[in-house]
């Protein structure tokens, strides 16, 4: 806990860190508190379609007269939840595969690396596209398929880390002493891999947020009646002639969310891994 406080202090000690934290808190507050100050996001009011922002609806209404503040807020929450899920799952699975490859070495390592290379040969958006087209939609499927796209990044990082650890003398010594490999992994590899993986995960969070939004915008992500920032931008874009509010609001929230997450992620990296802070 004290480490977390220390990290927070460090993050707050620089401008980008403060900005990132502020944006992130603002977005989280918006996602969590929005529904408290606005009507039910699913109540229709056909007579009040495309209402401009006003007292009844702080951010106006959409094509069915639903409150946009509530909808954007709920959509933000859903988008963030998905992104966090995807990042967490892919970083955990990626780390495990990477560590196994790094520890095992030999043909296992070569095979895993080859698969990672091959997956990386696909532009991510196109790969996700093809997977979703083939294997269907739905939130769970969506999370699973996008996870597949992001696993190799984490896997590569974990593998590289595991390779360096493998040659360290104290680990070799334990291996000689016939300590169970699982014990070694848990005792030494996991803690050592965790740092860079957390950094990579936090750097990837905004990427995944934008990724999900693009997929949802194109109709391959979140399916109605659920909505995320991507679907909100799309819905607004469809009726751009009546009202440009919905699109711009959702787009702005999306931009702030990704900017905030990036600034925070970079600050976190500088705290956890100061060596790499210079170059990208």
């Amino acid at each position: 806990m004290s480490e977390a406080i220390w990290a927070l202090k460090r993050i707050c000690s620089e401008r980008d860190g403060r900005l990132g934290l502020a944006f992130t808190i603002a977005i989280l507050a918006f996602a969590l508190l929005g529904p408290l100050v606005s009507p039910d996001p699913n109540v229709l009011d056909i007579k009040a379609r495309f209402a401009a922002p006003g007292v009844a609806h702080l951010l106006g209404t959409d094509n069915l007269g639903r409150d946009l503040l509530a909808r954007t807020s709920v959509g933000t929450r859903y988008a963030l939840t998905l992104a966090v899920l995807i990042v967490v799952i892919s970083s955990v699975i990626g780390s495990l595969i990477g560590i196994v490859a790094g520890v095992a070495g030999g043909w296992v390592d070569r095979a895993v690396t080859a698969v990672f290379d091959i997956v990386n040969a696909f532009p991510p958006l196109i790969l996700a596209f093809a997977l979703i087209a083939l294997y269907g939609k739905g939130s769970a499927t969506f999370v699973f398929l996008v996870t597949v796209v992001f696993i190799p990044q984490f896997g590569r990082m974990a593998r590289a880390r595991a390779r360096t650890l493998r040659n360290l003398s104290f680990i070799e010594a334990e291996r000689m002493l016939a300590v169970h490999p699982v014990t070694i992994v848990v005792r030494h590899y996991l803690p050592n891999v965790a740092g860079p993986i957390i950094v990579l995960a936090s750097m990837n969070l905004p990427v995944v947020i934008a990724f999900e939004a693009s997929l949802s915008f194109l109709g391959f992500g979140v399916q109605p009646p659920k909505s995320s920032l991507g679907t909100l931008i799309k819905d607004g874009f469809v009726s751009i002639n009546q009202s440009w509010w919905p699109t711009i609001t959702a787009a702005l929230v999306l931009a702030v969310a990704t900017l905030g997450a990036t600034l925070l992620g970079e600050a976190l990296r500088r705290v956890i891994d100061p060596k790499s802070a210079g170059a990208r």
Partner: protein
Amino acid sequence: MRMKLDRRTFLAGSSALAILPYARFAFAAARTNPIIALDTDIGNLDPGNRVGTTEGNIIRSVCQTLVRFEPGKLTWTNDAAKEIKQISDTEFDFELNPGQMFTGGYGEMTADDVKFSFDRYINGDKNGKKLTYADDMEALKSVEVTGKYTGKLTLKHPSAALWLIGICDASGAILSKKATEELGDKIATTLIGSGPMVLREWRPKEQFVLAANPDYKGPYKAHFEEITGKIIPEHKTSFLSYQAKELDFTAFDADQLDTAKGLADTKVIDIPGIDYTWIGINVEKGDLADLKVRQAIRWAIDIDAIIQGAYSGATSRAKTLLAPGLLGNWADAPLYNRDVAKAQQLLSEAGKSNLTFTFTCLNDATSLAVAQIVQANLAEVGITININAMDSGAYWALGADNASKDLELTLIPYTSKFDPSFQTQWFLASQIGLWNWQRWNSPEFDKLHQEGLETLDKAKREEIYIKMQKLLDESVSCIWITHGRNFFVDATWLKPMFLPNGKDWQFEFFDKA
């Protein structure tokens, strides 16, 4: 906000400014030949294997048919034919005009070409494969050549539909036998005709150019030297392009009507549709098999709110299958205005509560809006609706392999043709597992459909089709929403022309106002 300002300043400074001097693009004032928008690209130019209306429209203007639809009407006069003589209900003699030349040096049209073109619908293409539109000529039994320019059509049974949806339409296009045989597979991308226009250029996904055919011998000379069709998939985008004066004509969606009315130098064209969109109820599925449940749903759904919310109030409500203007329109069909109390009473009579159904629809904005209104409406009578929105590929795949058996409520948009039999065929028992997603099976309806096909007398047909719609109404398997409405914006100097469905455009009759 600061960030945004930065980006704009940056943009203005680095790239946008550099472009500005050239930013005077394509202005309408300078145009004498129209540029119009189409939402679908050319897929296949073989008349019998065409994919959609875009090719149909091009084919009708590039090829000759024996008889051609008059401007904006469903009546026809001779085009390639000099004379058509009716021998009996099932026999017709035709004589072609001499000297009608196919473009590309493929020579003069003869009765052989007519036989060749029509036989493809009977026998299939060069590999014997059935043409996609073979059913348009279902009633045609044979074509016989009796002279260089003369021949005889024999029908299987009397048919009003053959002329309306077969011979007059793109399926009736007369191809050059020589060209088709020489071109082989290229017939999909090359259209050789003898009609008022030629397809001068086609850049897939971008545009095509139709030009007047100087060698056309028939009575319907094209008015424009050139018509450029831009392929713009979304009406929203083409409407914006129109506003930016990049286009002279485009279809647009109902919800932009107010914007359209406010545009300068613009005519708004509004053509009531003949298509039909409805909520189909699967009469075999679980609690929906109970007539009272279906009635309750019909009373609970607020069609007027759907028209307002999903169609911006810019379309009129449908009461029945066949649209006003079509033969067999049931003008006195009952209107079911929302009555929550009645719906609740029916549900309690049926002894059903806590019902949950899936509402399947396409994933376009209008369908989703309809779905969400239905969801809200039915929630008020205690029925939970889960929306299942599908992309078009998956959705239309429900029309095969009995995939429709698990549907419950389905929003279905169908397009119509001018003969009522084309519409009623999808509700036949033989279509269960294919396109009859209501899975309603009525031998009486099927019998009437066959009668309607073989009857020529208009009044009798009228009676038959109204009777069929009454049966549909009693089945409570369909909740009619709208026949659609086609909206176009059109630069005042241009006068477009369509058949009465608003979907089939007659490029050859487009003219200066």
